[in-house]
């Protein structure tokens, strides 16, 4: 499943970049992050919860910064997590691209390629798609709100 969101943030590009390069900030803007701890440079371990009606998923896994290309204003993060109770998992690649729109205006484009595996992927694909899209939207909204509010 592929998703993307584009939003305009009232902050300079460097500021947005620095904000996003801090996993602490990213995890705060991502709805559902239950915990996030650093294992080593660019590698984090966390718990992520998502609820679709009565189905509560609790993903445990890792998040890794794979690309931080400040030249191109492009970053990639890879997430791999499992839900042990339901026997499912998720694999996702989040890409962020920043475009300068003005000294205090930046366009952020976030793209997500995600695969929901196992039972949840099998039976809940359409709704999971919708949920994932909503999460990405919320992420973009939170990022713009946090930066604009600073």
């Amino acid at each position, binding site marked *: *499943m592929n998703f993307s969101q584009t939003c305009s943030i009232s902050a300079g590009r460097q500021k947005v970049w620095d904000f996003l390069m801090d996993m602490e900030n990213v995890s705060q803007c991502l709805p559902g992050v239950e915990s996030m701890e650093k294992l080593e440079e660019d590698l984090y371990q966390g718990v992520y919860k998502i609820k679709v009606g009565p189905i509560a998923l609790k993903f445990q896994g890792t998040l890794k910064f794979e690309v931080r290309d400040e030249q191109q204003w492009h970053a990639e993060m890879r997430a791999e997590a499992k839900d*042990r*109770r*339901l*026997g499912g*998992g998720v694999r996702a690649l989040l890409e962020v691209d920043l475009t300068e729109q003005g000294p205090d205006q930046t366009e952020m484009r976030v793209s997500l390629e995600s*695969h929901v*595996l*196992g039972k949840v*992927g*099998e*039976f809940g*694909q*359409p709704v999971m798609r919708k949920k994932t899209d909503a999460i990405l939207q919320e992420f973009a909204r939170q990022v713009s709100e946090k930066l604009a509010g600073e």
Partner: protein
Amino acid sequence: MTYTVVGKPLGQVEGPAKVTGAATFTADVILPEMIWGKVLRSPLPHARIVSIDTKAAEQMPGVLAVLTARDLPDTLTGRVVYDTPVLARDQVRFIGEKVAVVAAEDPDVAEDALALIEVEYQELPAVFDAEEAMNPDAPLLHPDYRSYPHAPEKFFSELPNVHSHVTWQVGDIQEGFAQAQQVFEYTFTTHSQHQGFIEPHASVVSVDSEGRAHLWISNKMPVRAQKLLADAVELPQEQVVVHPVCIGGDFGGKGSLMDAPLCYHLSKRTGRPVKMVMTYTEELMAGNPRHPATISLRTGVTDQGKVVAFQARVVFDSGAYAGFKPVPIVNIPGANSAAGVYGTPHVKIDAYSVYTNCVPSGHVRAPGDPQVTFAVESSMELIAEAMGIDPLEFRKRNLVQDGDLLPDGHRLEHVRIRQTLEAAIESSNWGKPKAHPHVGRGVAASYRHIGAGEANAEIRLESDGTVKVITPVPDTGTGAHTVLQQVVAETWPLPVEQVQVEARPELFETDSGAGASRVTYVVGQLVKEMTEELRASVCRVAATALECQAEEVVFEDGHYTVKGSSDRTLTLAQVAEAGSGKPELSIRKTQVNRDNPQVTTFTAQVVELEVDPETGQIKILEVVTSHDVGTIINPIGHRGQIDGGLIQGIGFGMIEEVVMEEGQVSTLHLGDYKLPNIKDIPPLKTVLVQEEIGPAPFQSKAIGESSITPIAAAIANAVYDAVGVRFYNLPITAEKVYRALRERDSNGE
């Protein structure tokens, strides 16, 4: 000819068992101490298996065994080419591939344990489209293909991932195009359809104290299954004993081992009988659905509207493994009917079967035929329109005739396509005014060979005077055993009640089993001959008992008497007693029919439908299905084949699709993958164009794979007639019609 038993509408011999629930299907087999197996499947389409940790699962209470490829012999399996691992070894090639298996006291416990198995994968680049898989830079799924057991060298290809390339040709295609004034090219695509049988695959294996594997399996070719299992688990074939069971629907899909090797290994490991029953979700993610196909046609036509050259390139998406294909070419034989019911002098058909990281495809009723017929019967209309010829007239100018060669090298006799087509048209509303706007009519036609194969049977006179036929062919629902009963009863002649048919696959060493519309032909023919032979033997025994010459014995009203004297009569039971122990009262034979017969079967269908232009919804108002038939041995079963195939064909044409996105099936239960139900069936008119000429017993013909084939094309042609949009891919859903109409309207503006 008039017959006494042939042609009678007899209910299935299995009827009483089936309507009372007494009939035993594989999942109904319950053995003492039986346990359950469940498999863990790959969530990724292409990956290297880095590690599998089964410890936690093994320690779970109630779990008796957990196996991975490391616990199994390094064998591959398949119906012809052995390319499929029993459990994935080092690598997975599709979402749903089996990675590990658990045996437990209870299926729920086995499921519980699966969740505890940890598999680490390393993802590999995957390819999901057959055309892309043929590109030089595509990931290679099976680099060692050429060394796999039974890989057909004759059909190897240099193209990446192509595991079989077959060419059928007649005439000289270049010469053909040189004769043509006009050349037309079109490409069509079709999708994946599940067989939709109601009984999911099931297997039970019990390894006895002597190491023999007792097998119950939903497999229409049990003798073949015996051999395949023996190879898969490295046992001598005689160490596998196949037990007869009813098959809950086949439609081409029930010819593989599926989980049987796993049942064997689990049974061997635990010393307990093991049952595995696939869920329907597993059927839809890892069954063996119909091959998606891309069909590119190039047709050369003279200015007079005569097709002189026809070239087809058919690319089948084989999925991750070719092991479900049962024919030696390891390709889809139906591709050879891509030239349709036309007697084109120069034809070349290339069929490519290609590995991709999708669900492995298998055979589905008339494999390949509905796909290529949709293409050719759509293209005939396109060409006719382009040339300004009435499509029906264009077809008639080009119909195949007696003596014509088909692309597979068959020279046809008793060709009945013209009569079949005309009967379909006459019985329909063709040419009549239409009741509403947006009503359309479409026609399509096809042919279908009877398959060849090996038949085996035993026939004997029982002590109670019944004649018993023992066949390795199981009951798959087609009424084959009833037909055999009628063949024997008619031949002798005997009352049908005095003939019994029993499936005993374990008594035979080789056999083709059911499939390819062959049973009535190959088994029926053999049984008919054997009946005559047994009757002669019985007559001789009766003669001895009656103390006369065999020529003097007459058989009347179920009794043997001496001609002209009614003093002494013998019932069949009395003859059996008199001949007790005589070997000639029990005959066993094998017969191999290597070639398809030269008389084939034609089908023509006319569909009348109405399109709702606001929604694109299609409502079928009437279907006329016209069949060229010989003698009908059992009209109930015969009609059942026509009706059932037709509705399955409508499902293929309009409703059913195993939807895959990057190898992940999203239609994973029968709430999402919809099968037509009783309210969805259209009014149906069946026309039988009968002539008592056929290759099967009593001049009968095959019918099982006829009605499914042209219907999708007829629907496509009718939609075009109704609203003027042409479809190049299937299924023709309401949404596709809606989109096409919008597109046309916006282009028109």
